[in-house]
């Protein structure tokens, strides 16, 4: 049993490499920020393994060598201590810690410097950075792009290879914005503005999570960061600002009726295009959602269940349940069809 200690550091390394799901795990970093943090994690881990190897070796040796053998009754020498040893095991840890502390301080400052990257922009790139205001709500995310005057809900589109500057706010309690594969977290604190930055070199859908307990549905407060190539991003941004016809003025009978239901029951909270409230997520591109309400599969069944019974799914959120009196089956079908039509990227 004692030898298990020896195996632990090894298993640590084995388990560390490439653990977890792609685009979620902090151990599979994408982009400069997560990579910087990952290498710091690795550095600290190596130092810690070194410490553990030393401690565990002495430990195992001592326990084995000085265990009481049967019949042994000798009284060991009563040693008082040893100044030299005390100095050694004070100095070595200090050195090890300096090895960690110095890069850490440097990285801390690098990460805090969201920077205005105008100088870098001089070299001919079109967009050098994008600012996104992230407002957390119980239990959903609002992403405002002040430079584009657009708002998106639950899903944050970003261009690849571009510095993204994030401003964090909250409309109610404290939340925390975490996209493990792209960057560590910062808190959304009511009354205070925080910022952070990251870049995504690869296209992909990155999973994000809320990491500060914010109520009963905290665990479902997921979101996505969707990195697309800069051209697609431009299309997306333009179309979000001025949605194509099928969104504002849908054709097809079911969708038209659905629009009616939407205008009646939903528009006070949800916006499509520039019409509608913002108590709930902007639904302009709902039809292209990776997930419904941040975490469900966006199937028709789930959508209906969600609308009928929101409070069951995300207890405590602001949206009311819509029972059959509020929206009958027919209307529901039309509404769902309409919502599914809300696409802005593919014409």
């Amino acid at each position: 049993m004692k030898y298990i200690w020896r195996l632990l550091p090894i298993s640590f390394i084995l388990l560390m490499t490439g653990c977890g799901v792609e685009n979620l795990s902090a151990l599979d970093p994408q982009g400069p920020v997560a990579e910087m943090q990952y290498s710091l994690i690795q550095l600290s881990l190596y130092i810690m393994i070194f410490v553990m190897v030393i401690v565990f070796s002495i430990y195992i040796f001592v326990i084995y060598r000085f265990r009481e053998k049967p019949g042994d009754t000798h009284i060991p020498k009563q040693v008082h201590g040893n100044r030299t040893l005390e100095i050694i095991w004070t100095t070595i840890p200090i050195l090890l810690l300096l090895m960690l502390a110095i890069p850490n301080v440097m990285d801390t400052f690098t990460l805090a410097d969201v920077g205005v990257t105008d100088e870098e922009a001089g070299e001919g790139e079109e967009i050098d950075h994008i600012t996104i205001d992230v407002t957390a709500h119980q239990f959903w995310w609002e992403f405002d792009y002040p430079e584009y005057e657009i708002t998106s809900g639950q899903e944050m589109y970003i261009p690849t290879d571009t510095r993204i500057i994030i401003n964090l706010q909250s409309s109610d309690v404290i939340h925390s914005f975490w996209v493990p594969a792209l960057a560590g977290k910062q808190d959304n604190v009511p009354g205070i503005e925080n910022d952070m930055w990251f870049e995504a070199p690869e296209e992909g859908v990155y999973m994000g999570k809320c990491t500060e307990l914010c109520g009963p549905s905290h665990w479902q407060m997921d979101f996505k960061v969707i990195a697309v190539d800069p051209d697609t991003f431009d299309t997306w941004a333009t179309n979000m600002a001025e949605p194509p016809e099928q969104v504002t003025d849908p054709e097809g009978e079911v969708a038209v009726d659905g629009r009616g239901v939407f205008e009646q029951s939903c528009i006070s909270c949800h916006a499509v295009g520039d019409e509608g409230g913002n108590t709930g997520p902007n639904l302009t591109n709902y039809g292209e959602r990776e997930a419904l309400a941040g975490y469900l599969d966006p199937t028709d069944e789930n959508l209906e269940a969600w609308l009928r019974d929101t409070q069951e799914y995300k207890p405590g959120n602001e949206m009311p349940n819509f029972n059959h009196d509020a929206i009958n089956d027919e209307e529901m079908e039309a509404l769902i069809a309409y919502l599914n039509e809300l696409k802005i990227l593919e014409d």
Partner: protein
Amino acid sequence: MSSHVDPSAPLQGEPTKNTQRKLKKEMRTQLVSFVLMIFITSMAFLSIASDAIPSGFAIPFILLLAAIQVTLQLYFFMHMNEKGTAWVNIMIWSGLFIAVLTVAALMLLIGVVKY
């Protein structure tokens, strides 16, 4: 050892000559520190109330005065200067140290300004 102390019996007698002398001296010190405190407080009050002194100077000045006054209280009125108060000194200064840290944190590190 049949006789136990009766702690509720009134204490009799006079203090020793030595003690009396000390007390007399102490009385004088206390009066002086009191006068000093009154003076310090009035100084602080005047430096704000009179508007004569620029606030850039007045603020550190009155904080300094407060510190002096507290030291007077602690060391003269509360006798922290006496022998055998080592533990008292340790605890009070530790308390003050942590209180200062707390005040500094709550003034500076509450997210309004980033350091």
